[in-house]
Each structure stands twice: as structure tokens, then as C-alpha cells.
């Protein structure tokens, strides 16, 4: 049946690799060799990109808003720190997975609160959970190190072979490898029937249920997975910086993540990656111009994006980024979060 193979071909269209995607990853890899003095900031960007991808999974695909995503980052960060500090799991990759799983447990437990409400409830619940964890970490300072954070973390070589160096080279390539593997997994998932069902739920939960989709179960699954991703991002933070302090739970961290996705766009996986690059570069530029007040300019950019209107920005300011994004993400990809998600 030719119509059938036609259907198969078109159904897989979104999932096919584009040249621009390969180019994107080659450029990222090349950066590792081109800028050997910038490993620290580049590693920071990779971490933020992974963290933003985690939020994109729930926001861009399932339509779950969150202002407390740092909860998972923080749990991952402290888990990795404690594992290394007490020598429980010395090998970084295993510790990374264990830290991700710890965040995943939290994600699963809190998902039942999050799926209940609508957007505003979700914002408050997620925000509340992150604040709660921050307070707990401060209270139990005998475990968390309190306001001083975990100190004296010494990382063992990756896979027992590659030691972390003081320039951050190993840390960069390690982070890049983790980001890429998790990206591949996410890419696989969003193009599966499961991934499509998430988009359906985001579009119209009423209809989604009316074709037999167990809406709550799917939302719990993706929220739990996003928590795993967030935890890994946090664990990478601890492992590459050898510190974990209370600010891993900070509200700024969750809020910044929203900015990253507003800049980069949602629902095509590259939004978090591109957004992270732009966001950190803006931060760099602004803080060079005005070290004390750079947040003013970041705030201004956000207000402009939201107020001037995305439609107009699409046409003018974001014309070039949009071109690139369409290359990478296909014609449906858009810059900036749709009105309903912001």
C-alpha cells in the first residue's frame, strides 16, 4: 500500500537528522579545541544547557510550568557531593547516575502534587518545593555543610582513567559527552508515540483522554524523567566545580532557566542549548559593561521579549536566530515560549 509507506515516511520526518543538527554538534565539539582558555565558562554553558533541556521536556512538550526546577538541580548537586565526599561512590559516572536517580525519586514523589493543578498552582507548588529543600539543606547543616556548603570534595578520575584537570578540559569534554548522550535519549523519546502523546496532552488534555491516553500517568513519567535530567545537571555542577552550596537550590537558578527557554524557545530540544549560549553570553557582555548592574540589562531583554511581542520580534530581532532554529529544529520550531506557557 503506497499510502501506507507514504504515511510512514512523513510520520518519521520530524525524527530524521538534519545537516544543521550535525553541524551544531560539530561546532560545539570544535569549541572544545578552539578556545582552550575558556573551558570553565563553556562547561558552565553545557551544564545550563542540560538543565534547560530538562525543563524543556516538561514545559515544551508536556506544558508543565515550573518555577522550582532548581530543586532537582540541588538534589543532584548535593547527592554527587555527598557521594564523593564520603567516598560512597568514587567513580564520577556512576555517582552521576546515582545523583540523577536521587533527583528522580524526588521528581516522582512531587509529580503527584504537580499534575493536580493548573499553571498557577504548578508555579506555586514547584516554587514551594524548591524553597522547602533549600531551607532543609540549611537546617541540616551537619549533612549539607549549611551556608558553607560541602567543602573538600575531591573528584576521582572519570572511569578510573581520566583525571579532572585544573584547566577544566576534562570537565568540559565529560560534560559535553553527558549532554550529548542525554540529548540523544531525549531526542529518541520526543519522537516516539510517548513523546507525541505528551504534545497531545499539552495541546488538549480533554481530547487526549478521549482517545485513551492515560494523561496523569504520562505526565508523571515525563516529570520524573525531567527530574533525572535536572539531577544530572546538578551533579555535573558539583563534579566539575568540586563545590556544592545552598545556592544550588536558589530561586534565581529556576528563574534563569525560564529566561533561557524564553530566549531559545521550547519544544524542539535545541531551545535550551541555544538559549543557554545566548543567555550566558549576554550575561558576560553586560557584566563587562556594567559589573554591578548587569541584571538590569538581562531584565530589560526579558521585558522586551515579552512586551514588544513575540510576533514582531520574530520578524525583526529574531529573524536570524529563527532561520538557524528552523534549520536545526524543523519548520515547526519557534523562538520564545508561546503566550500560554510563559
Amino acid at each position, binding site marked *: *500500500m503506497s499510502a*501506507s509507506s507514504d504515511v510512514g*515516511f512523513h510520520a518519521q520526518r520530524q525524527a530524521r537528522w538534519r545537516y544543521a543538527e550535525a553541524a551544531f554538534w560539530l561546532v560545539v565539539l570544535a569549541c572544545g579545541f578552539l578556545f582552550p582558555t575558556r573551558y570553565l565558562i563553556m562547561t558552565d554553558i553545557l551544564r545550563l544547557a542540560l538543565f534547560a533541556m530538562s525543563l524543556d521536556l516538561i514545559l515544551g512538550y508536556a506544558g508543565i510550568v515550573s518555577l522550582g526546577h532548581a530543586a532537582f538541580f540541588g538534589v543532584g548537586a548535593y547527592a554527587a557531593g555527598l557521594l564523593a565526599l564520603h567516598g560512597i561512590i568514587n567513580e564520577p559516572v556512576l555517582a552521576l547516575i546515582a545523583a540523577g536517580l536521587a533527583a528522580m525519586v524526588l521528581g516522582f514523589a512531587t509529580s503527584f502534587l504537580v499534575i493536580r493543578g493548573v499553571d498557577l498552582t504548578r508555579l506555586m507548588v514547584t516554587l514551594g518545593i524548591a524553597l522547602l529543600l533549600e531551607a532543609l539543606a540549611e537546617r541540616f547543616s551537619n549533612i549539607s555543610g549549611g551556608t558553607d556548603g560541602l567543602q573538600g570534595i575531591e573528584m576521582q578520575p572519570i572511569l578510573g582513567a581520566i583525571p579532572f584537570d585544573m584547566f577544566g578540559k576534562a570537565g568540559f569534554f565529560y560534560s559535553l559527552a553527558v549532554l550529548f548522550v542525554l540529548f540523544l535519549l531525549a531526542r529518541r523519546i520526543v519522537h516516539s508515540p510517548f*513523546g507525541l*502523546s505528551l504534545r*497531545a496532552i499539552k495541546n488538549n488534555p480533554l481530547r487526549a483522554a*478521549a*482517545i485513551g*491516553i492515560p494523561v496523569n500517568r504520562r505526565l508523571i513519567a515525563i516529570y520524573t524523567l525531567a527530574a533525572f535530567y535536572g539531577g544530572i545537571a546538578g551533579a555535573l555542577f558539583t563534579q566539575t566545580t568540586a563545590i556544592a552550596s545552598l545556592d544550588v537550590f536558589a530561586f534565581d537558578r529556576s528563574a534563569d532557566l525560564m529566561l533561557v527557554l524564553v530566549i531559545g524557545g521550547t519544544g524542539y530540544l535545541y531551545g535550551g542549548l541555544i538559549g543557554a549560549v545566548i543567555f550566558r553570553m549576554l550575561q558576560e557582555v553586560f557584566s563587562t559593561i556594567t559589573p554591578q548592574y548587569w541584571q538590569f540589562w538581562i531584565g530589560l531583554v526579558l521585558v522586551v521579549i515579552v512586551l514588544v511581542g513575540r510576533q514582531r520580534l520574530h520578524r525583526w530581532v529574531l529573524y536570524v536566530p529563527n532561520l538557524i532554529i528552523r534549520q536545526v529544529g524543523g519548520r*515547526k520550531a519557534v523562538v520564545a515560549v508561546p503566550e500560554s506557557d510563559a
Partner: protein
Amino acid sequence: MTIALETQNLEKQFGGLRVTRDLSLKIEQGARHALIGPNGAGKTTVINQLTGVLKPNSGRILLEGQDITDLPVHKRVLRGLSRTFQINQLYPDLTPLETVGLAVSERLGHGGDWWRRMGTRSDVNDEIADLLTRFHLLDIMNDQTVTLPYGKQRLLEIAVAIAAKPRVLLLDEPAAGVPESERHDILAVVGALPRDVTVLLIEHDMDLVFSFADRISVLVSGALLTEGPPDQVARDPQVKAVYLGEEAVNV
């Protein structure tokens, strides 16, 4: 005859307002059953209880003899009860291909599959292609739903319900809002539904009701006024009075 769908003493209140009053309906296997009534009679409320969107205050709902009163929406679908909505409930960002593909995947139990790509299962693809062809959607299968003309969206709405391979199909005003030029497609599709599918039609359009239905239930203020074959209902003076006005209806 076996009964496909049945309500027993169904009762629903919104605050002090009784919108469904002691409603007992029996819909026979393979029937073309229409539920009619004036605006505000509570027809859509009945549908919402049948499909599980609303919980009745009391009474039972039986699907093929089994009590489904407490089942959530998606489980009723898997048991063979599917519906269309009076106002299109589609996915604006998704294409007809994705929309129908998802419904088919869910029914075949692949909906939770997070590893295999969409489009790699030939049984799913065959069925999608068949549905898209039957509903005249094949040539626009890659367009975003929100960009489709209303008549096409209406067809997609019905295609999605059929993709669930229902044994009982609830059609909530399938032709509502469809321009005259595109009505024919809808009516043809509804008329061509296989006979083993039991259909409960909710409709305002009397031409459609009397040409399609072999049995009609009349709902007034949430209660069953009368029930019977179309000619009998059309002659019923009570029905004429409350619903059809004083006009005579030609059958």
C-alpha cells in the same frame, strides 16, 4: 437484541439544578439512536457522563452489560466507547497524520512506547493511511490542524473518534457549524459507518436526525419525554409541543 449502552436512573445536579433527571436509556447493539431535545435539555451533560468527563450523582452506566460508572475517561475508550465533541477538540499544533497516528497507536497499546519512532510500525501506518483516505485527509496530512478549514477539522474530529475502533460511538452534533458546501462529506462519512458500530447521535438538525436514526429519544429538562421510532416520535403531540413547535415534520 443485546444492549450496547445503558443508563439506569442517571441523576446529575449542578448545585440545586437537576440537569439529568432519573434518566434510563437503552441503546441496542448496532442501533442508529438519536438523542434530541431543545437547547439546554442536558444532552451534552448526558454525553459527558457517558464518557466519564462528569460523574453522575447517582445511577449507573453500563457498557455491554458491564458497569463503567466509575471508570476514568481513557479506560472507557479502551473498552470501546468513543466520542466526538460538539465543539472540535483537536490538537492545534499537531498534523492530521500525528493526530490520527496517536489515536491508532494508543488503541494498539503502543502509546506508552518511548523508544520506537512514530511511523516505524507498518500495522499502525496501514491503519493511519486507511483512515486518512476514508476521511479525505490524506493530501493535507502534514498541515497543522489549526490551519485547516473548519469542515476538514470536523472530519478529523470524527476520524479521531473512529481511530479508537469504537463499538459504541457518540456523535455530538457532528454537522454543527459546517458550511453547506462541506456538509455532504460529513453526512457521507457518518452514513458509511459500519453497521456493527452502535451510534448515539446528538443533533439539532432534524433532517439529519430523521434521515439517519432508527430510534429517537427526546430529552426535555434533563428527563426522558418519549422514545420510539422516528415516525412515531414525529407524530407525538407532546414532542411537537415542546420541541418542534407547532410545525409538522415530514418524514
